[in-house]
């Protein structure tokens, strides 16, 4: 048999197969189970309510709050400036640009942390950076920011500073209460740094 015939007998069926099967558009997962477990263990995904309140009050342009609850719940109450991406629609194409980017700091929140964590895990598994979870969710947000409890009189100055900050932030964001003492308000926890994706280098080829 001629080499050309042999080649034809091999490549034509292969070509037919590849023409008939649907194109594979799935992306391979970018994180191993071990890597994800280590991120979950170190709780890197959490941002404290204090840090978020601080960013909202200062109108930090890098902040983007994402409400992952249903649209009904979002319309009833949402944090200032939050957008709504129900976790059921998370993989919809229209949200890819919002979730997969390296400019803003996306913070997912839900009532507790379960739904927000689900959204974070899925986006993390897709290899997206800069997505975080509001620690404690909206429930803790109300406890901590909107209705802060006055610490016992024996508490440390730090506790009082935290209380004052929460009180004033809560007030600025529509909660009740008046600031009673003016102490140093530097209590907003350090916020995570937005990571820029490494610039993709160009490869080149030729004859």
């Amino acid at each position, binding site marked *: 048999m001629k080499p050309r015939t042999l080649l034809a007998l091999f490549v034509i069926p*292969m070509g037919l197969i*590849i023409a008939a099967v649907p194109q594979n558009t799935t992306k391979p997962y970018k994180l191993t189970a071990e890597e994800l477990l280590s991120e979950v263990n170190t709780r890197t995904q959490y941002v404290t309510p204090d840090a978020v309140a601080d960013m909202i009050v200062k109108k930090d342009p890098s902040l983007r709050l994402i409400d992952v609850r249903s649209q009904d719940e979002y319309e009833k109450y949402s944090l200032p400036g939050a957008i709504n991406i129900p976790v059921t629609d998370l993989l919809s194409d229209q949200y890819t640009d919002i979730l997969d980017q390296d400019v803003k700091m996306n913070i997912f929140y839900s009532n507790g942390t379960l739904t927000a964590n689900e959204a974070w895990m899925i986006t993390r598994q897709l290899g997206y950076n800069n997505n975080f979870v509001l620690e404690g969710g909206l429930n803790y947000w109300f406890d901590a920011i909107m209705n802060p409890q006055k610490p016992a009189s024996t508490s440390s100055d730090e506790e009082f500073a935290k209380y004052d900050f929460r009180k004033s932030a809560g007030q600025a964001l529509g909660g009740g209460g008046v600031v009673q003492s003016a102490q140093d308000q530097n209590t907003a926890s350090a916020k995570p740094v937005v990571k820029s994706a490494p610039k993709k*280098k160009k490869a080149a080829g030729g004859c």
Partner: protein
Amino acid sequence: MGPLAINELISENTNLFLAFIIGIGFGFILEQSGFSSSRKLAGVFYGYDTVVLKVFFTAAITAMLGLLFFSLFGWIDMDLVYVNPTYLTSAIVGGMIMGAGFIIGGYCPGTSFCGASIGKIDALVFIGGLFIGVFIFGIGYDLWDGMYMAKFLGSPKVSETLGLTDGVFAFLLIIVALGMFWVAEWAEKKFPRAEY
């Protein structure tokens, strides 16, 4: 080694080292296939020897099928594969210059170094011409800058432009390639040359 280097799975130096190994392999295969002979290469244009056409097209459809099947099995992410950007005008003009040089000189850039490495004088002369061309291009860059960058189309794939899936286009290309092989072997019988 594009996807590996871009995603920093291997270092820049390892990448260069791998390029060196692959380059030596490429040159070795070219030489072993007889591509260090300008007469064999020029044969494509006169029809008496079409091995070059057959080897390169076989390599192309093999690589194409390999990539598509790897992508199908999820072994490679096609979004990370580098597609050469297209500048339409310079692609056409450059293709014509390259083709003319190919017929006149009997080498393409890669095979000329292959020929030079086994001591072919015509290959050395060809390389000299190659550097003169590079020099003229560099010196006169301002003159053809506009044309060089004209009609930038991004990195389109033929299958996308035609609105076909990659698989269907691959199948059509295989049919075309086999048809060309058939024409090529017919030409070899039609325009034989006893010695070259």
